[in-house]
């Protein structure tokens, strides 16, 4: 009985979809637009995140030590830095390595290298390169280093020579603010767009079912149960969702091919097409899932209105 009903509901849904061609076409069109907006938001979000990560990656704190600082003191400081929850990682650059890096950086500048040779000894101090998990946390780390610098002083001479972000503090503060507000703005825009598209889709499906309200009352009159009346409409809604999702996913293919190189140049590092291909299964599930859910729920709610009274 249940199987027979399900079979009939699915068949009826298909037939209705086909016979109400224009209404189906309009509903699929509107829902495609909704899913397209949703997909665009996923792409915009990913691009924004990638470029933010790149900016974040460029921000770090360098601690320069005096040349006569003991390596074990530095490593101890590194260890205590690593215990901080804000710190993502700490890289130790020894005196020798700093010299090597300096030499490779100036390998075309004979004058500087000559001057270095003349000096005889290594004039560079060791340094620690610290990356925080969040940009806003750099201030805390710098604060920590300030205190540490006093504590770890041997014979009242601090081993820390300089901490560089003191100079970049303003720039970092500004960047933090920009990133924070872009996140909030992005969230607000996303929410508004998604809500608006859902309302438009819902209204379209409601209108499509409104044209069938007389049919619904006839179906009730011949004694059809509510679920048997509702079934084909909900199935039609699911079909709108599936078809719209497939159209949307196909549309994104040429779009990302076209946008790929542009985004790569502009935002650096991320090619939208590669992102689409690599995360296809995830995007597929999101778009298809939202489409099906939107179609089914809209139809369910729209039919419910006409099923409520006993008429």
């Amino acid at each position: 009985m249940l199987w027979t009903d399900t079979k009939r509901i699915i068949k009826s849904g298909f037939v209705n979809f086909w016979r109400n061609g224009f209404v189906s076409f309009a509903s699929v069109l509107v829902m495609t637009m909704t899913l397209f907006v949703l997909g665009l938001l996923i792409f915009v979000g990913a691009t924004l995140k990638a470029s933010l990560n790149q900016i974040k990656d460029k921000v770090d704190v360098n601690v320069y030590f005096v040349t006569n600082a003991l390596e074990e003191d530095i490593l101890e400081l590194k260890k205590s830095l690593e215990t901080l929850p804000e710190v993502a990682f700490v890289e130790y650059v020894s005196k020798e390595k700093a010299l090597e890096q300096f030499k490779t950086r100036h390998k075309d500048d004979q004058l500087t290298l000559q001057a270095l040779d003349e000096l005889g000894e290594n004039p560079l101090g060791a340094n620690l390169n610290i990356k925080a998990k969040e940009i806003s946390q750099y201030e805390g780390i710098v604060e920590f280093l300030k205190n540490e610098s006093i504590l770890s002083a041997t014979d009242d001479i601090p081993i820390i020579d300089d901490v560089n972000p003191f100079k970049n503090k303003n720039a970092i503060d500004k960047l933090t603010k920009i990133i924070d507000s872009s996140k909030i703005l992005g969230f607000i825009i996303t929410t508004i767009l998604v809500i608006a598209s859902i309302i438009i889709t819902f209204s379209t499906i409601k209108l499509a079912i409104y044209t069938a309200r007389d049919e619904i009352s006839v179906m009730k009159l011949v004694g059809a149960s509510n679920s048997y009346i509702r079934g084909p409409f909900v199935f039609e809604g699911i079909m709108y969702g599936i078809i719209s999702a497939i159209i949307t996913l196909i549309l994104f293919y040429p779009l990302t091919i076209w946008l790929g190189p542009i985004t790569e140049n502009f935002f650096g590092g991320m090619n939208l097409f590669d992102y689409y291909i690599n995360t296809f299964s995830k995007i597929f599930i999101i778009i298809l899932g939202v489409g099906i859910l939107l179609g089914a729920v809209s139809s369910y709610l729209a039919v419910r209105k006409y099923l409520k009274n006993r008429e």
Partner: protein
Amino acid sequence: MIYFDQVSKIYNGGSAALDNITLSIAPKEFISIVGHSGAGKTTLIKMLLAEERPSIGSVFFESSDIHDLSKSELNDFRRRIGAVFQDFRLLPNKTAYENIAFAMEAAGRTDDEIASDVPHVLELVDLGDKLWNFPRELSGGEKQRVAIARAIVNQPDIVIADEPTGNLDPINTYDVVQILKKINDLGTIVILTTHNKGVVDSVGGRVITMDSGRVVRDDKKGKYAL
């Protein structure tokens, strides 16, 4: 079988569409309900289909009050009634065959039963060649015959025909009345509301005359008397 117990229906504003109706209908009866527009005929039918609730009183089918039925009991009850209307009320996006099949599907009949009964019942109303036509492709008389076929396909206990000939020409009217008489001959209660004197006189069964929401005449072997 059907019993109206002191039923009144008062709409907002205080006018009574039905005023204290008591009426009983026995099995196998053919009942014509006549009266002017606004006499309460359609309201009476709506009470019986449980489309509207009485303000006072109750309507019984066998021993149960039909306005106290649960949703699923109501669906079962509606499957025991076949209804035909002036405006046909066919499903516009379904063919003649599918319209009738839908009523059988709603009643939970099997695919085999549907495949054998639908052509048979359409043959009965003389539409054996219009199985796959949509309502918009049928004439008024043909649409009404599809509606009658749908009303009788589940072998109901009662067929209600609310002004079924209102939109039909005399020849189609005659056909529809003949079909209703045939249905009644097979043992089904037929309740017919109409304005048409000729229809009532040709049926020759029980005639109930209504005016201003009251039953003013109830003749066992009646004629149209307004």
